[in-house]
């Protein structure tokens, strides 16, 4: 192994403390499905104690990379880093599936093509869409359970966020500062309404917005171990981040936020890496920004408060360790009565998406989440990541639950006086 992955797995003391927080372990009870087992496997492989064969695939690829294991882990091993590297080795050896190669090496590097493809797909009901459907599932924009072209057609917005946003001028009446908005792919192509809400909130609270012409943040490629593509995305986007003069760089996708902040890891040039550091500190998740600018909010207070509960996206809770902001924001809204969701920071099973043999693991994790949602007895389930929204909304729909799933910013906007 080239990097320090081996040092990381070697520091696993086999204490087993990761078991009670690991979602895949909790639904399976299997040593294969917990950080300890994953680290021991990667280690044994590095030491040549286990034959390199396809048996290891499930253990490597069923990890959600949620890093819930991190909180109990004394040597503080970031499992996502170990797993990404191990997946890289795996695809290097067994080859990257065609479709993934097409997505990470072509489609996402040419978003205009992707955009055109989606447009074609929307009105035309023909076959040949299943490949696209699968591609979008891999990207996690439509939840991993969205299998058929039919379902897909219902969901693809006619216009992407970039197109919709270009139709308006995002200038506040009085300016407090300037933010650069990093457009996540899930929001751009699948949930433009979330992005519009962000843009409106930014302007309402007095910020001029520069919409960055960015590429995908690279996290989907990372999740599939395509570290070469990750470097490409990080390189392209870093240029943009370095160029902007905005006070903050904001995203409304917790996964993008946390991944952007790790760009220095994928930068081979030490000079560039050093230049990047201060910029990465300017990247702020919208949730955090909403809490920071709470005093400038003008909230409605015009109804019997609805009961709201919150699902922590893994990238906020376990990667950025950001749990307080969202709760502070919700508690501050007069129309909201906040209830804590049991196991709020446990993954919903969306996790981008993974192509795996036992995909039912994801369903079991979702079922556990939904059971908790029922017990919280809320009208609204808020969160801050498009993949979580997809997964949760799908679960809620399938089970006919009377809960509205929405992004935190939609909740905030809905309750903001727009004078």
């Amino acid at each position: 192994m080239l990097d320090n992955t081996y040092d990381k797995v070697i520091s696993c003391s086999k204490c087993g403390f990761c078991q009670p927080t690991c979602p895949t372990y909790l639904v399976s009870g299997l040593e294969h499905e917990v950080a300890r087992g994953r680290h021991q496997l990667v280690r044994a492989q590095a030491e040549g104690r286990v034959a390199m064969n396809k048996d290891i695939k499930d253990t490597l690829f069923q990890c959600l990379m949620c890093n819930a294991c991190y909180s109990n882990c004394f040597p503080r091993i970031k499992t996502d880093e170990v797993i990404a590297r191990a997946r890289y080795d795996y695809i290097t050896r067994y080859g990257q599936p065609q479709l993934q190669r097409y997505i990470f090496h072509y489609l996402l590097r040419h978003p205009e093509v992707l955009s055109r493809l989606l447009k074609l797909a929307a009105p035309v009901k023909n076959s040949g869409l299943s490949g696209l459907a699968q591609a979008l599932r891999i990207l996690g924009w439509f939840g991993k359970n969205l299998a058929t072209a039919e379902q897909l057609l219902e969901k693809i917005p006619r216009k992407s966020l970039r197109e919709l946003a270009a139709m308006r001028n995002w200038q506040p009446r009085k300016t407090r500062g300037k933010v650069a908005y990093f457009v996540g792919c899930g929001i751009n192509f699948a949930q433009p309404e979330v992005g519009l809400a962000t843009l409106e909130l930014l302007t309402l609270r007095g910020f001029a917005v520069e919409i960055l012409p960015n590429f995908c943040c690279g996290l989907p490629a990372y999740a599939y171990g395509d570290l070469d593509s990750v470097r490409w995305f990080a390189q392209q986007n870093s240029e943009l981040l370095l160029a902007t003069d905005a006070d903050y760089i904001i995203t409304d996708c917790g996964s993008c936020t946390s991944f952007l902040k790790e760009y220095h890891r994928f930068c081979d040039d030490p000079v560039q890496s050093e230049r990047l550091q201060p910029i990465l500190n300017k990247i702020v998740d919208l949730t955090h920004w909403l809490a920071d600018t709470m005093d400038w909010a003008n909230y409605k207070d015009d109804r019997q408060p609805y009961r709201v509960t919150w699902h922590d996206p893994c990238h906020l809770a376990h990667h950025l360790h950001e749990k307080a902001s969202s709760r502070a924001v919700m508690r501050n809204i007069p129309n909201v009565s906040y209830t804590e969701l049991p196991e709020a920071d446990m993954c919903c099973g969306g996790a981008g998406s993974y192509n795996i043999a036992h995909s039912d693991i994801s369903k079991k994790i979702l079922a556990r989440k939904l059971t908790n949602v029922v017990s919280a007895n809320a009208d609204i389930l808020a969160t801050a990541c498009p993949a979580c929204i997809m997964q949760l909304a799908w679960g809620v729909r399938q089970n006919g639950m009377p809960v509205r799933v929405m992004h935190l910013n939609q909740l905030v906007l809905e309750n903001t006086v727009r004078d």
Partner: protein
Amino acid sequence: MDKKLIKKLQRICGRENVFSRSLDLLLYSYDASMEKGSADVVVLPQTVSQIQELVRLAVAERIPVIARGSATNLSGGTIAPQGGMVIACTRMNRILEINTEDQIALVEPGVFNLDLQKALAEKGYFFAPDPASQKVSTLAGNAAMNAGGPHCLKYGVTVNHVTGLDFIGADGELYSIGGRTALTPGYDLTGIMNGSEGTFAIITRLVLRIMPLPEAVSTMLVSFADIDSAANAVSAIIARGIIPATLEFMDNLCIRTVVQSLQVDYPVDAAAVLIIEIDGPELSLASQNQEITAICRQHGASDVRLAKDEAERTALWAGRRGALGAMTRLKPSLVVFDGTVPRNRLPEALRTIHTICHELNIQYGTLLHAGDGNIHPILVYDERDADETARIRTGCEQIMKTCVDLGGTITGEHGVGMEKMAAMTLLFSPRDLEAMRKLKHVFDPENILNPGKIFPQLRVDFCL
């Protein structure tokens, strides 16, 4: 493993619950100890009758059976040195009943200790055994190891809190012993099952004694400038007739490591700290606190800090519970000993351990369940370094011998497993061991259940 046998196992438990690829076996070849050894097959049953059929098959085929919970034990208890079948109880993790009138809880074997605590706390109750691994260790694992924890000083170890058990014996039959009351006639089979380390039976259900949460709790952190003073203060507190709920000791290396790891507010320059907790009626606490403070001051305490609120208390405990794990930050592997000595020999024991580790050039830190005289020297090393590993093994032997020489034992709570088998001869005469073997023979005449544990090896086969 034989294909036909695998088929049979699959028929009992379902295909998806039987694992026998080399990858599977690798993943079940370790626990939190230094030991390693591969089973031939791993099964994850979901019902008692599945366990029963598995054991019957194992007996018929004469395959070793190793019961397993979370595999956090520190003595090699879940290793399969002679191959065989691992029965992992991790999918049997329901709390079946909490009955506050009878003050019992009924649980499946694979419930995490802390999950039970959380469910009990909602009802104003608790389960006294609180190993530092309580977040993750299972209740069957706690019983099988007779686990202890900080609060066991006042309340006793696991065996004192299990009133009944269901288990599958080595004859493949289901037994139900003890019951919902602490007092049952005849031999105390429940008692004997605690600490049997999976060598007597497979536990399938536990009846646990639960207790109302104390009215009030007060926790203090006392710092000392040298280790002897801290150890002497411990003896003095107990000698005064005060039994705190906990009386824990951490040395300087543990303090510094845990501060780095968890950002807890411990005094990094203290040679040792004691974490002393008392509980009981609100009214009684203030005077006890005064008395303990006075004793500590008399013995040279440099600082006495009382946790002001629940948050501070939780933080103090996070530090103590995290100390062992935090030591892995120093080096990737660790071995922790849990010998006990009479309390008044503590200073001597600590000095000798220091000399041993110093001479062998071993980095170590010490935790104590000081109130019980239970010593936890934590020796850190890198298992890739053969020389260091060998020194560690020597150190371990010498430490155990020290404990025995001072009138103590080789393990207070972590079990004998494989790691301390050889040291059993330090403590027990051949005749004592023979008596234990006979007992084992009664429960498991074919030596099917967790073989290669507890008894010094070589002799076990020719004896039975």
